[in-house]
């Protein structure tokens, strides 16, 4: 019996020894870069995004590498795709928001609700790389009300290089250009004529009628396919709802301006000629994308990113000639296109909420992403897996390039580069080429690389226009707005201004389709006047007043003198 007891105690001791051995092992060996979290293994941070893309942390080797480096793992949740504003409101009201949030258009709601941590001290203490990459631009992240930083913008716009691609622009199918001998349209009328000429040559697509001019105006589609195109063709930068009189910085609701009315006139003409889909005004993004993916949409003014997935789908469906070339476009000759001119202002980014258990670990992780090493990881991926060093230069592996081009889900799942939802704070921009301190590019986006990555049709079209990337189509030398982008101005939640602009948004969604669908000039005027009347009922002047004041405040904050 005594022997048994001693045997038992022996095994217990051995177990304890084994346990002790186990518990000590994480301490040595691979230690995460963030010193504070070592020994505990990665901490998991709930990480919400109002973007619509869905990726899983564990499926991406790049994000796993990020965890290994920083000791932070994101539990990713995506809220985008529905009624974002309502969702954000419910989240704030219910106190049900994650530790880290990328609120995009809902950013101001979270700032106003006071659920975000001011990042100034955290950046000061733990963010040397953030400070380095942002420089003086950090000031432009400050909330005008209290001068504090509540989010880190997706990327600093203080080192504008050449742009690679347009953000939003005129898009025309390669085949249209090809059949017409590669003309270069300058005005909307040029485009209209091209489309008609093409349809005369090619009446339909496998028996299905063309949709010559693409447009979708449900939700934010109104902004990028109705409102913003009107601004660009008028030679403005994207100020969204705002029209800013640069002589006195007075803001007017853009849809009230004649610039907008002129664009609607052109759309009205297109509509009456059957060039616009009859149902476009209530079409949703998904349906529009599937329409574009069918290859039936010949041209549009839209975000290049909005057609990125359809273009990939088209190439996959063996219709590479249905992808789109990018052009600057204006209403009439004499107007200078400024659509791709960038202005430095920021309205959203990544924020740490007051739910965060370890804000220091999170800011350290963000700081790593903002470092040059982090930039390489996020943009190039893992050395040997996604890129090699050839002649001292980073070169993306050909199979990775091919997959990125052809598989819409590849970059997303991998969280690689510009398709990653973690592209904030980086040196590169989706649309520009930036060099790091090591003299090499911050991302695989270099002129040659981009050209080489392109499919044959794209190369062919670019060759015809003598360019290596679409950015070359655009003149970015135009004068940027000194107030940045007007849409980045924060408007207090539930203020009369916000209420008015919300109502106005509903009014423009409801009333503008009728204007575009007017059967004649008389009806057009009638509908336009009705629209103006309806806008007046929303007390939009409250918003105009608030916006004007906000611009003046910002100019003061940014120390722009006029």
């Amino acid at each position, binding site marked *: 019996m005594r022997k048994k007891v001693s045997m038992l105690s022996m095994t217990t001791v051995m177990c304890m020894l084994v346990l002790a051995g186990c518990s000590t092992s994480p301490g040595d060996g691979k230690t995460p870069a963030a010193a504070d979290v070592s020994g505990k293994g990665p901490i998991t941070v709930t990480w919400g995004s109002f973007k619509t893309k869905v990726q899983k942390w564990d499926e991406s080797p790049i994000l796993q590498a990020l965890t290994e480096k920083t000791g932070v793992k994101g539990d990713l949740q995506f809220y985008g795709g529905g*009624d974002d504003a*309502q969702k954000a409101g419910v989240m704030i009201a219910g106190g049900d928001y994650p530790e880290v949030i990328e609120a995009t258009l809902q950013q101001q709601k979270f700032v106003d609700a006071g659920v975000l941590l001011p990042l100034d001290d955290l950046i000061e203490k733990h963010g040397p790389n953030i400070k380095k990459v942002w420089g003086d631009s950090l000031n432009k992240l400050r909330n005008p009300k209290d001068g504090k930083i509540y989010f880190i913008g997706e990327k600093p716009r203080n080192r504008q290089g050449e742009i690679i691609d347009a953000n939003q622009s005129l898009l025309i199918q390669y085949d249209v250009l090809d059949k017409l001998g590669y003309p270069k349209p300058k005005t909307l009328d040029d485009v209209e004529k091209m489309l008609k000429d093409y349809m005369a040559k090619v009446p339909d697509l496998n028996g299905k009628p063309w949709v010559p001019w693409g447009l979708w*105006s*449900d939700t934010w589609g109104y902004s990028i396919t109705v409102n913003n195109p009107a601004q660009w063709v008028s030679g403005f930068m994207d100020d969204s709802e705002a029209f800013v009189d640069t002589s006195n910085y007075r803001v007017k609701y853009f849809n009230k301006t004649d610039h907008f009315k002129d664009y609607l006139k052109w759309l009205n003409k297109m*509509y009456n000629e059957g060039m616009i889909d*009859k*149902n476009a*005004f*209530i*079409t*949703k993004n998904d*349906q529009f994308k599937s329409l574009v993916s069918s290859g039936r949409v010949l041209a549009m003014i839209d975000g290049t990113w909005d057609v990125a997935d359809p273009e990939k789908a088209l190439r996959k469906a063996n219709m590479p000639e249905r992808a789109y070339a990018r052009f600057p476009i204006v209403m009439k000759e004499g107007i200078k296109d400024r659509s791709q001119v960038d202005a430095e202002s920021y309205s959203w980014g990544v924020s740490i909420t007051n739910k965060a258990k370890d804000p220091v670990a999170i800011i350290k992780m963000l700081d790593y992403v903002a470092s040059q090493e982090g930039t390489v990881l996020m943009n190039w991926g893992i050395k040997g897996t996604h890129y090699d060093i050839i002649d001292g230069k980073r070169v993306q592996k050909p199979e990775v390039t091919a997959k990125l081009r052809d598989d819409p889900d590849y970059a997303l799942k991998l969280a690689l580069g510009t398709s990653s939802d973690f592209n904030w704070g980086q040196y590169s921009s989706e649309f520009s080429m930036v060099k790091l301190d090591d003299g090499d590019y911050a991302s695989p986006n270099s002129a040659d690389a981009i050209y080489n990555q392109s499919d044959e049709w794209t190369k062919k079209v670019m060759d015809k226009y003598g360019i290596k990337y679409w950015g070359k189509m655009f003149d970015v030398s135009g004068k940027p707005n000194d107030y940045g982008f007007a849409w980045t101005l924060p408007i207090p939640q539930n203020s009369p201004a916000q209420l008015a602009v919300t109502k106005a948004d*509903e009014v423009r*969604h*409801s*009333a*503008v*389709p*009728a*204007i*575009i*669908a*007017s*059967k004649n000039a008389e*009806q057009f005027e009638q*509908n336009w006047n009705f629209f103006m009347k309806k806008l007046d009922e929303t007390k939009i002047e409250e918003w105009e007043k608030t916006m004007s004041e906000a611009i003046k405040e910002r100019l003061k904050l940014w120390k722009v003198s006029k």
Partner: protein
Amino acid sequence: MWNFVKYVFIFNSLRNKLLFTYMLIILAFLSVGLFVIDHIGKEMVKQSITREKKDVLQLKENLANYLNRYIDLSTEIFFDKTMMDYLMSYSGNRGESASGFYTILKPTFQKYKNLWPEIDKITVYTNNPTLMSNDDEISYVDPQSTEWPMYQEALKSRGKIKWQLHQNDQGAFKIRLNRALLLDNFEVGVLSIFVDQEQLNGFFKENIEGNEINIFGPKDMVFGSTRPGVLGTNGLHLSDYRSNEHTLRITDEVINKKPVKVISTNMDLGKYSPEQWAIIKIVSNNLIMQEVKVTKQYLIYVFIIVISLVILFSFLIAHHLGGRMRNLSHSMRKLQEGNFSALVIDKNNDEISYLAKSFNKMARRLEVLVRDNYVMNMQQMEMEVQRREAEMNALQSQINPHFLFNTLEAIIWGVHEKKEETAEVIMMLANNFRRILNWKEDFIPLSSELQFIEEYLRIQKFRLEDKLQWTVKVDDSLLSMHIPKMMIQPIIENAINHGIAMKKGNGHLKIAIEKKEGFVLMSISDDGVGINPEKLSEILGLMNDRSMNTSGKHIGMKNVFERMKIYFGDRATIQIYSEAGKGTTVKLSLPDRTIIKSGGVPHVKGSNS
């Protein structure tokens, strides 16, 4: 049987009897247990059927509630006059319809979708060409549309709900509620609510693998099933088992060669949805039995363990008790054989140990008793032998050749001188011998002894003539007292032969017998030569020597002494006082025998002395 029982109870060992009893108890226990297990099994079957019934009823209620949510929703839309007006409106400018879309249709549907996120899509199908459509909230149908048949069918049912299981382009199944929308009896469109079919899987969460739950929509189409791959089909052929009433129906069936219980019930969804739904649950008998079997097995295991323990313990107890009893009986048998040392060692503290202790006590006492008895017997035997020996010695002394020779010499001498006296002496001598020979009793009255002494003294007087004088002084009350025979004579013989005969001149012999304090004192004194001290101590040493091997010396005295010891033990004393030249006195002290009757002392039988 009876013989067996008798055998067991009469002839077998205690251990086996105990075991037999235990086995009987276990047998009883076992049969009761088996009965209980069987009963529990039956009860479990009943219970699990009851439970299945309850489950089905619960499922029915939950499912009805769930579907009613969408029926209610459709009813709400059905009576939404603003929306009906919008759907009825004809606008010359198609773009104007966007206004109704953004202010009526979209926000209303969005509200419902927010309330019930599981709703995939709410769509109104319309034939109104002036309304914009987006295949989401609103969809245009005409005879070319794939939805046209659905549209027509729904319109025909005039506001009553038609259910469908719809498979979308991605192959996902949606439960689809179709309902005609009417405004003042005029058809304005068809409402469809799409809900993920997977939602129904939530109702199967509790289902045990092996059982099957099927939810049948209209036309026996499978809307939900735990069986994979049957969604949207009506090939299950289970409608045969369908209940005709709304109560539960349970039937025993054989499906796929397996015995099952089919529990079915119809489900009514209210006046707006007249199509009958049904729930059919197929419960595998095997599964029920399996459950019962598992429980039974468990019970049996417990039973076996308990019984094994009981058997083990009964064996141990029986063995223990039996062993101890065997020990006891073994010791008893040994005791029977006379082995007193065969004690039982039993450290327990119960009846058996009490028995063992009692046995031990008894054995010990028996041993003592036996030993005492034996020793006494031995002592008696020894005493008898000694007595016989003494008697023989006495006899020997009586026929002392010296005495005979001397007497005969005197007689011869007397024959010449005094003829008359001589004849008398011869007669006395004869008497004397006869008396010795005739004294068969060990004890004789004192008077007889005295008479014998008188005759002996007269024979000696005849021989010694005037040299011998004597006086006898006896307490008359003592004459009848019995004393051992020949007790006094040897002392007198000694006194004459070694005292008076050796003396020059006349000698006087005094015999006194008297009572004193419960004792009888006999004093024989002579005034002869006496005994010198060395001789006296030699005599006294001889007297105390227990051995009988005396070589004829002082036989008489020792004989007397030995016999006194035999008969009276320490209560008799003999004292010798002597002074050389002055004489010797021998004092005998005996217990007063007048109190004890003759024969009060055990005699040794069979002696023919």
